[in-house]
C-alpha cells in the first residue's frame, strides 16, 4: 500500500469556554491517498471545517487540538510551531475556501500574488516565476492569461476568482489541498467547471484533496471516498458510490432520503425529526440516538466507534452486534 498523504488519527478539537469545554471534533480518523479526493459531508456544525482547520493548523484560539495526530506523508505536523506550520501551509498544503476574496489581496494584481507565492516556495527569479504564474492561470482555464495576470481581484467574476484561488493554492505543487465549500457560492454551471478542474489537477499531479461540502451531488460526481460527519464524529466512511447507493448508518440513510430526486417525485421526503445536538448538550452513547429510528437501549449507553463494514466503516451498533446488547 502506498503511504497516505494525509493521515489523521483520533483527532479531538476542543474549545474551552467559561461554562465548560466544548468538543467540536471527537475521535476522527481518516486517510487520503495520493491523487485521491475524500469528500467530507454533514450538516452545519458537524465539525467539517474544524477538521480541515485543525489539519491546516489554523484553529482560532482558544480552539485547539486536544488529542490525536495529524501526519503529512508520514511526518507529524500537529506539533509544529508557527514557523514550521507556515512552511507547510502553502508549500505542502494548499487551501481553498468558500469566499475567494478571503484568499486574495484586493490591492495586489493576481500576477503579483502568484509570483510572490511561487517565489516564496521555489526561490526562483521573477521572470521564471511569472512564466509559471501564466502557466498556472492557463491550467485553471483563465482566458487570455498574459493580459489577465495584471488585473486585480475585483475585475474577475466570482467563478473566475475561485479559479485564481485554485491556481494560487496549486502553484507550489502541494501534496494536499483542503477545499472548504469551494463551490457553494457559485452557480451550477460554474460549480461544474470548478469541480472538474479540481479533479483534473488532482489526477495530473497526484495531489490528495479533502473536499468539504454539504452538497451530496458534488461529492457524488467528484469524490472517490466520502466521510459523513455528525456532531463532531465520523458516522460513516466508504467509497462514494457504495455510500450513496447503500448507506448503512441510519443518519446517512436519512440524509440520502431527505434529498429531493431529479428523476422521480415522492409525496413526502424522508424526514429526520429534530436537529443535531448542540456541543454543550451532547447526549451520552451514540450522538444520533435521540433522532434515530433504529435506536435501542445500548445506543443511549455506549458510544459506537467506526467499525469496518463491507468496503467502508460505520459507527453504529446495528453493524456491531445489535442495538440491544452491550
Amino acid at each position: 500500500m502506498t503511504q497516505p498523504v494525509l493521515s489523521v488519527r483520533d483527532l479531538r478539537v476542543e474549545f474551552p469556554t467559561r461554562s465548560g469545554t466544548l468538543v467540536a471534533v471527537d475521535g476522527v480518523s481518516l486517510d487520503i491517498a495520493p491523487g485521491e479526493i475524500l469528500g467530507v459531508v454533514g450538516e452545519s456544525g458537524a465539525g467539517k471545517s474544524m477538521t480541515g482547520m485543525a489539519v491546516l493548523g489554523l484553529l482560532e484560539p482558544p480552539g485547539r487540538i486536544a488529542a490525536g495526530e495529524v501526519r503529512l506523508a508520514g511526518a507529524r505536523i500537529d506539533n509544529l510551531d508557527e514557523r514550521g506550520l507556515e512552511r507547510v501551509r502553502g508549500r505542502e498544503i494548499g487551501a481553498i475556501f468558500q469566499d475567494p476574496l478571503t484568499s486574495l489581496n484586493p490591492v495586489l494584481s493576481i500576477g503579483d500574488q502568484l509570483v510572490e507565492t511561487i517565489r516564496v516556495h521555489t526561490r526562483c527569479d521573477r521572470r521564471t516565476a511569472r512564466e509559471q504564474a501564466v502557466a498556472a492561470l492557463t491550467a485553471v482555464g483563465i482566458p487570455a492569461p498574459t493580459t489577465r495576470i495584471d488585473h486585480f481581484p475585483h475585475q474577475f467574476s466570482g467563478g473566475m476568482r475561485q479559479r485564481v484561488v485554485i491556481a494560487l493554492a496549486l502553484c507550489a505543487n502541494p501534496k494536499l489541498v483542503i477545499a472548504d465549500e469551494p463551490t457553494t457560492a457559485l452557480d451550477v454551471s460554474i460549480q461544474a467547471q470548478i469541480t472538474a478542474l479540481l479533479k483534473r489537477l488532482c489526477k495530473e499531479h497526484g495531489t490528495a484533496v479533502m473536499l468539504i461540502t454539504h452538497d451530496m451531488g458534488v461529492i457524488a460526481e467528484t469524490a472517490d471516498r466520502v466521510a459523513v460527519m455528525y456532531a463532531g464524529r465520523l458516522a460513516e466512511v466508504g467509497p462514494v458510490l457504495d455510500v450513496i447507493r447503500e448507506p448503512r448508518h441510519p443518519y446517512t440513510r436519512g440524509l440520502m432520503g431527505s434529498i429531493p430526486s431529479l428523476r422521480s417525485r415522492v409525496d413526502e421526503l424522508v424526514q429526520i425529526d429534530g436537529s443535531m445536538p448542540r456541543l454543550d448538550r451532547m447526549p451520552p452513547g451514540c450522538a444520533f440516538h435521540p433522532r434515530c429510528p433504529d435506536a435501542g437501549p445500548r445506543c443511549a449507553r455506549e458510544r459506537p466507534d467506526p467499525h469496518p463494514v463491507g468496503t467502508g466503516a460505520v459507527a453504529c451498533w446495528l453493524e456491531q452486534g445489535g442495538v440491544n446488547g452491550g
Partner: protein
Amino acid sequence: MADTLLAVDGLTRVFDVSAPWLNRVLEGRPRQLLRAVDDVSFSITAGQTVSLVGESGCGKSTVARLVVGLHAPSAGEIRLIRPDLRLQMIFQDPYASLNPRWRVRSIVAEPIRTLGLRSDEAAIRARVDELLGIVGLGASDGDKYPHEFSGGQRQRISIARALASEPEFLVCDEPTSALDVSVQAQILNLMKKLQRELGLTYLFISHDLSVVRHVSDVVAVMYLGRIVEEAPVETLFRRPLHPYTRLLLDTIPDLEAPRRDRTPMGGEVPSPIDPPKGCTFHPRCPLASERCRHERPELAARADAGRVACHAVEEGRHK
C-alpha cells in the same frame, strides 16, 4: 380563467445603476440601466405552485418583490383575482426577517393584531398556539427569542408569522436555500402539507432544480431577466427544449446517476447591464445561428404544453 389567482403581464423592472451624477458628468460616462426583469408574463392557478428557477442574478427575487409590491414595475402589470387577495412573502434568511428583541409569541401575533383578525387577548393567544402547532413547534416555544432556535426552526417561525395573516397566496424566495438538506426536507414537507390542508397557492423561487422538481406544478426558467421556457413540471424535466434549460439540467450533479467523467460546458452568465443582442443566450448556445445573434426570440407555445423562446426550437433544429 376563473381560477387564475394572479396574472403577470409584460412585467419589467429597470434599475438605474449609474455612477453618481457628478462623476458621470466629470468623467463623461453615460447613464447605466439594468433590466433586472424584462417583459415577464405568467399566471398562477389557485392551489398550485409555480416556480421560477435560474442562475444567480437572472431576476427571480426581483419578480418576487414586484409581485408582493416591494418594488414598483417599470412597465407591465400584475393582476390579482380580487383586489383584497391576501399575500405574504417568506424570505431566504429567516433570522434577518425576525425581530430579535421580540418573543416568538409577539412576532407571530403581530399580523393578527395589525389586521384585527382576533378581538381579545385570549383568542390571539389561542390562535398563536394553534399556528405554532401547525408549523411543528410547541406552545412553550412562544416564550423564547429567535436566537434560541436553529435555522430550520426559525424558518418555521417565519412561516407561522406569514400564516398568521391568513394568506391565500405565499411568495417564497429561496425558503430553504440557507438550510441543511435534512432541515430542508422538514420545511418542504411542511409547505406541502399546508398547501394540501389550507389550499395555499405558492410562487416558489429557487436555484435548486431538485427542490423545484419536488414542489412545483409549473416551472418557469429565467435567463437574464426573461422567461426562456415554461412548462408543467414533468414536461419540463422530461422534454426540456430550450438549450439553456438543457444546459442547466445537464450540469446539475445527479445523485442517482452521477456522471464522474463529465466535461462541463463553458461560459458564464453575461452582465445584465450590457446583455448580448438577439437571443441573450447566444454566446453560450451550441445551436446559435446568425438569426439568434440579431433577432430576439419571443415566447411561443410549445407543441405539447408550455412555452419556449428559441429560434432553433421554432425552426426544428433542436432535435
